[in-house]
């Protein structure tokens, strides 16, 4: 077992875990943060995207021990990173633009969109599509997902984070 200490969604946590435990497993099985989902389990689909020290990563492709000493934000803590309102502006935009059908890819889509807008607050449609290339949607809802990201960009004047 290995001792890990990290910050998840603003709270400090510490645990003894097997070194082979994936970050996504740790979040879901140890912390009960099932808002982060496992999609493909092969690091392709991006459904498990969280932020590690403020940058998007696929949490099925990071070991929990590698996150020790670092800060993780999941979809469950995203709204708290934003002042005012129950939802983060990107969450709000996905609701407004119907950026989901079944919703399974949505946690990852939103976390990646927040990262994208932090780096490029006013992306073009092409830049959104390229920036979201690591996230798959099997309802073929890409058009409304792209619309949602662009909408979030416009409603926050790029200040989505």
């Amino acid at each position, binding site marked *: 077992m*290995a001792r890990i200490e990290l910050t998840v969604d603003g709270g400090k946590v510490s645990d003894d875990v*097997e*070194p*082979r*435990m*994936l970050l996504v*497993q740790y979040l879901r099985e140890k912390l009960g943060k099932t808002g982060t989902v496992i999609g493909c*389990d*092969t*690091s*392709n689909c*991006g459904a498990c*995207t969280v932020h*590690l020290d403020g*940058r*998007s*990563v*696929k949490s*099925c*492709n*990071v*070991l929990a*021990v*590698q996150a020790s000493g670092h800060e993780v934000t999941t979809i469950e803590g995203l709204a708290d990173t934003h002042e005012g309102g129950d939802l983060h502006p990107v969450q709000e935009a996905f609701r407004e633009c119907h950026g989901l059908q079944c919703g399974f890819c949505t946690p990852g889509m939103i976390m*990646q969109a927040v*990262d*994208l807008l932090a780096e490029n607050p006013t992306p073009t449609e092409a830049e959104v599509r390229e*920036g979201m*290339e*690591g*996230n798959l949607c099997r309802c073929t809802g890409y058009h409304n997902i792209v619309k949602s990201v662009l909408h979030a960009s416009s409603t926050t004047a790029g200040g989505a984070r």
Partner: protein
Amino acid sequence: MIPTQFEYLAPTSVDEALAALAEHGDEAKVIAGGQSLLPVLRMRLNAPEVVIDLGGIEALRGVREDGDALVIGAMTTHHAVLHDALVGEHAALLVKAEHQLADAQIRHRGTIGGALAHADPAGDLGAPALALGAEFVIAGPGGTRTVPADEFFVDLFETAIAEGELLTEIRVPKHTGWGAHYEKFVRVAHQWPIVAVAAAVRVEGGTIAEARVGLTNMGSTPLRARSVEEALVGQPATEDAVASAAARAAEGTNPPSDLNGAADYRTHLAQVLTRRAVLAAAGA
């Protein structure tokens, strides 16, 4: 799937990492960003008893200048390389390739050294490293040695890094003012290329003065398209002249046949992509 059990070591210096490697030998696997290794461990294609994580070695991160070369720490992430001002100015070809490598999330974790040491023939950085004449600084029990790109890539997933050694730095000769382009042909977004071509050219008054061309996935290692390079020198940067040189792109290659395409298809692709890459690099 999750990996089999392993012991996890997190050294904070290269010396500590080398000591761990010396102690555990071939029972150990080194993890850099882990974006290629973790899927392998999860699918249990490999089951090391010890995993040595280089993530805590800060000295291996960052880009600096050293005379006519850039020195890129092996643990510098793809994202950091992509946005580094020095790399943008002196090694634009790397930026072009990094921009198309995998996706944003993978680029945040994955490292330039990890990708090059992994030596996947479909990896995006081998061809640019070859084309730019990069050198690889490898640390071992007896000190460090420097290996030129031509000798670094040995075979499929095999490099000049020997047991007990670590890749610590990549030295890239400055190609300031060169035009560059990475032309990648993929089946779907964020996948490995079926074939890709890395081209850097120095154009003087409309004529190609120097050219470097690297090929991805046209053999078991990245390859230099030397006959194309030679044919380009002295030519005008025009569609006809470049197409004529690019027709030689597959010379000396041994492309694989797989579900994405047969060898003769790749031979054709290499020529088409080389023409596109060189023209784009030359700004034509």
